[in-house]
């Protein structure tokens, strides 16, 4: 996994962190700013960020791993989310996930070698009336079935 991480220069790190010097309570905006730039939070940021915020590296890691929105490994350009909530489950959400697994060749939480896709499961996407639901990046695909899902996934 490390080999896929791009080299990050010290100047780049300092450039992002300079706005957060000493601001402990802005740890989440800081993590978001890093993730916005790289698509994930590269592990090399943990110690410098902790130092800038006057926190311990373990505390930064604790916050980062608590929230599902942050990832410490590179993620794909396209994030596919399949809902595994109750409403989607009773209407066949599991078969949609299996389709996604097969078409993308990825397990839950995995990212493709070419960094094109990341597949994730979520507990609810807030669109139960359209269940089963899948999202690709910010687009919702409702009333899915395996066939429709396969078509959608193959068109991106």
């Amino acid at each position, binding site marked *: 996994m490390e080999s896929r991480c791009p080299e990050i220069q010290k100047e780049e790190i300092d450039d992002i962190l300079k706005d957060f010097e000493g601001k402990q309570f802005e740890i989440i905006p800081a993590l978001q700013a890093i993730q916005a730039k790289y698509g994930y939070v590269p*592990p090399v940021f*943990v*110690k410098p960020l902790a*130092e800038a915020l*006057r*926190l*311990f*590296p*373990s*505390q930064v*890691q*604790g916050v980062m*791993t*608590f929230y599902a929105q942050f990832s410490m490994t590179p993620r794909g350009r396209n994030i596919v989310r399949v809902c595994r909530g109750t409403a989607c489950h009773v209407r066949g959400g599991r078969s949609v996930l299996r389709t996604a697994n097969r078409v993308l060749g990825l397990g839950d939480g995995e990212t493709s070698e070419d960094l094109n896709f990341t597949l994730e499961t979520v507990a609810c996407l807030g669109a139960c009336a359209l269940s089963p639901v899948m999202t690709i990046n910010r687009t919702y695909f409702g009333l899915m079935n395996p066939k429709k899902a396969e078509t959608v996934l193959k068109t991106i």
Partner: protein
Amino acid sequence: MDAVAITLNGTPVSGRPGMTILELAREVGVKIPTLCHDPTLKPVGACRICLVEDEKSGKLLPSCVTSISPGMVIQTESSAVIENRKVIVELMLASHPESCLLCEKGNRCRLRSLAAELGIGAVQYYPMPHFSETQEVNPFILRDLSKCILCSKCIRADHELVVTGALDYLHRGFDAKPATTFDGPLESSECTFCGTCVSLCPTGALFERNKPHLGTVSNRTPSVCAYCGCGCNILLETHEDRLISVVPDPQNDLNGKTLCVRGRYGTDYIHHPERLKTPLIRKDGILQEADWDEALDFVAAGLMKCHAANGPDAMAFFGSSKGTNEENYIFQKIARSVFHTNNIDNAGRLHSGPSLEAIPSGTMTGPIRGLENSDVILVAGADPSASHPIVSYAIKRAVRLNGAQLIVLDPRRTELAGFAALWVPIRPGSDSLLIAEILHFAGSSRPATGISDPGGFERRTGCSPGIAEKISAMLRSAKSPGVAYGHGITGQPGAAVSARLLAALARATGAAVYPLDKESNSQGAWDMGCMPDRFPGHLPVEDPENMARFESFWGAHLPGKPGLTATGMILGAEAGTVKSLYVMGENPVRAIPDAPRVASALSRIEFLVVQDLFPTETSKYAHAVLPSCSFAEKNGTFTNIEGRVQRIRRAIPPLHQSRSDLDILCMLSCRLRSPATYRSPDEVLAEISSIVPQYAGIAEGLKRGSVFRPSVSGERPQPAPEAFEGTALPPTAPSKTGEFTLLRGSTLFQYLHGTRSARSSRLSTIQPPGYVEISVSDAAHLAVQEGDTLIIQNDMAEVRKSARISRALPEGVLFCPFSEPDISALFALGHAGEGVVSCSVRLKKSEQ
């Protein structure tokens, strides 16, 4: 403020506003079970075991985080409470392995005892055990997180007590666990292995590794740690005359629930196979085993003969900064009253001697815990994280929890530098110049710096003059500043001047002074008169009044002129004027710089007596070696760096044929026709309290716990006023190209010269000997890789060490622990405070 009245289990009780239900219940003697609560940690309400019922609303409240409010009606044992507690414990047990029979925690496990109290046998839930994969190789702590109940005590202890930050939660929900950064083993994290988390863990998730006995111990003896001068209160856990483990004594206001790795895990040296088993006397040129009577007769005869032949000035006595007050008192009493000599000193001379000239009796002017409430702290030439860890915890708590500003003057980037608002990487040896400049900006007189050219200050100290002004302003604006200094000051040339400058700076800014330069009982050794110019109680020997006082008290004729210091004795031995040396519990060959020269001086001594636990570099030259016992095998008192007198207690009988230093001295004194015979250390203490002013009434006070001396006035000593007219600053040697500055210091795992810590198998496993640290840039410049052999040389010697590359060092500086015995050959033997910690060397890489 008005008391808050509530009803607790039907009884009206009242508490202070802001109190939690749990605190009030404990105060009035109502038991509420807890798992995640500890009075020294911030309550978080994680485990929910402490639920109580509010009768009015019928709600269940976590009592550890719920404040009392007027009119509350609380039930702690209602059926709803019991039912819920059972469910919580059962849920915990459902994800807990069924390994209680094998668990090291045994019947001390809080979870197990709680389940037993609630009558939970089989659990009705489907078991979902956690699996633990963390692999540790450190010799101190093992983690089995399958037993973790997520009480977060370890995390809070780490963040709030020792402020290290090795642990925090990782992930959330069922996957959550306390973990290091990147979930690696403890040894690759910031963990210092202080063991605080292990002491607090309610289950068997964290436990001590390599314990000689896994079952329940039979005895726990309260005592005091014998490594550094903090004097942490400990419990010695023993089983069948063997020391099993050391844990913090819960009843103390000094170290609380914390210890450091040395005190917690470094006492296994006591059972080291090299312990001296019988007395040894030199017959026909070789040291041979003898029984006590024979050995003591031999020692007495040898001392008397030497005294009769060469007079009192040829006798010298080397007291111990690790021995008890009682032992040091009797030792100097024998030297002065039987052999009529003031040639008595202790090994603390080289490190804490300079403080005696700066602060009355060299003692801290505030308690260690006072640092926690300081708002600006200056740490000069000290690395308390390694030398006095409890002090570093207090400083880090002040910074992280109370928002204090920390200033660190140190060429090395020490752990504290990472917490500092201002870290000044000063050039080694230029401290006094910078401190004088800070003092100048604080509006005090200072010695002439002798700098005329504009860039001179910056060139010599490596920092801009503005820094001094800034530090001075920070200290002056502080409400309760603190100034700490350590071996980096007291071991540099001109240490006495630097220490006095710091004391003057403290006085000018109203700061408390914290000298961090002492071993377990260095303070006691000074107080007991183990120094050549002062009687017990720091009373000058030249004052006829003092002399008359001690002459009448001891019933002996006493010498009136000051004697030789520790290094003076070695120089005397070299010159042939010191014929007999008696060393109690010290190892001068390691303690005094230039080991080969010290060894050759000792080899010239006609009658050398050594009392020690182990055979040492010094005992090789001895004519008699008497086996003494460790602190865990004897009774007595220690005086810590704060001036707090505390009892050490015997937890196991002396091993083999060893005896306490006091026993040995008493048995010897009978043979020296000395009238002094004591049946116990308490009788010696009684004598001390009747003659040493600061120790008056100490025995009475010790019945209630520890006592701050001086107890006569009840006041803490203040730094003596000093003027610096005509005082010259020590010269800062200009660095020559190609020369490195070699610094020496204590490390966390090897305390000082390592006579004891190097024999702790656990401490030596984590820090194997034989290395020197080199900076990243010097390593790159010399193409040195980690582990390469370096040749360090100067005009005195050549030493080979394996390289360890350190990010904490600046260019041109090397660092080596004191515990490397051969490195001492590079340092010059001089008087106190003349370059014990730094010297100039040349460096090259070995090509083999």
